[in-house]
């Protein structure tokens, strides 16, 4: 019964908190709206998210987020350097296929998002069976190193988080 009413408790809490911060008012009125949103939005969107993700070690998401944040800052300097100083004909842009061992769609989505936000890579597509990601690297003289870096730096951590 509870499960049918609140299919994604995490999402419900997140939405409610999100609303409170967005409205920036901590009154009974906003709390009621927050609860209303937290309950109805997951119910309405349930057809597109049928399964609850299994997160084995959710607390590891915090160091993961910090790592990604740091890499985003580093990425900006690298991309800025390529844009400003590298002659156009020396930019080695290429597509790279990255095999993915993760199976949870949520985990693959996080990996794809991470790839886009971090050093010189953008997720461009995924394989129809969800077992490979197609990424584009802005400047990758060694495409295999980029692929291995993604697998060891991000995918290995996500594997531990999602178990």
């Amino acid at each position, binding site marked *: 019964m509870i499960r049918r009413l609140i299919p994604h408790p995490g999402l419900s809490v997140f939405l409610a908190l999100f609303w409170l*911060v*967005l409205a920036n008012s901590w009154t009974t009125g906003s709390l009621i709206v927050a609860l209303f949103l937290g309950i109805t939005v997951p119910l309405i969107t349930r057809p597109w998210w049928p399964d609850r993700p299994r997160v084995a070690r959710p607390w590891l998401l915090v160091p993961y987020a910090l790592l990604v944040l740091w890499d*985003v800052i580093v990425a900006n300097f690298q991309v800025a350097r390529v844009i400003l100083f590298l002659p156009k004909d020396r930019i080695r842009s290429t597509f790279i*296929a990255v095999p993915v061992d993760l199976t949870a769609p949520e985990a693959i989505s996080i990996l794809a998002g991470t790839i*886009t*936000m971090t050093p010189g890579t*953008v997720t461009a597509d995924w394989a129809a*069976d969800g077992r*490979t990601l197609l990424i*584009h690297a802005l400047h990758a003289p060694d495409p295999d190193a980029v692929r291995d870096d993604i697998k060891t730096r991000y995918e290995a951590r996500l594997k531990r988080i999602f178990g």
Partner: protein
Amino acid sequence: MILMALEWGLAAMLVGGGIFALIGSWGLLRLPDPMQRLHAPTKATTVGVGAALVASGLGLTLTDGVISLQEALVAVFLFVTAPLSALWLARVHLWQRVPKDSLPPPVSGDWAVFHGADAADPAGRTGDGPAR
């Protein structure tokens, strides 16, 4: 004295963020290939906008004494939406302009963009219609 140092720090942050946003836009102009251009707005701008958000949050907290969390929400929206819009722009580009055999093959099966579109090409990808 301390407040003044903080103000200088915030000002430096705003200018630094602005420089990064500028570099991102410059990349959009300079890079020749559409896939390369996609890199500029997804990265150089995140630090640009991020710096402005941190400065705004810290500035409001320091001057008004209220902790302002709305900047954090903007950052969350940004981190969720930027990769998604980049992904779909890339997919449209792949579909319209990139020959399938110029891409590295996936481990198994087909890239999702081309999935189900065979040589006969029901969607008319080989035609030179206005979409290209």
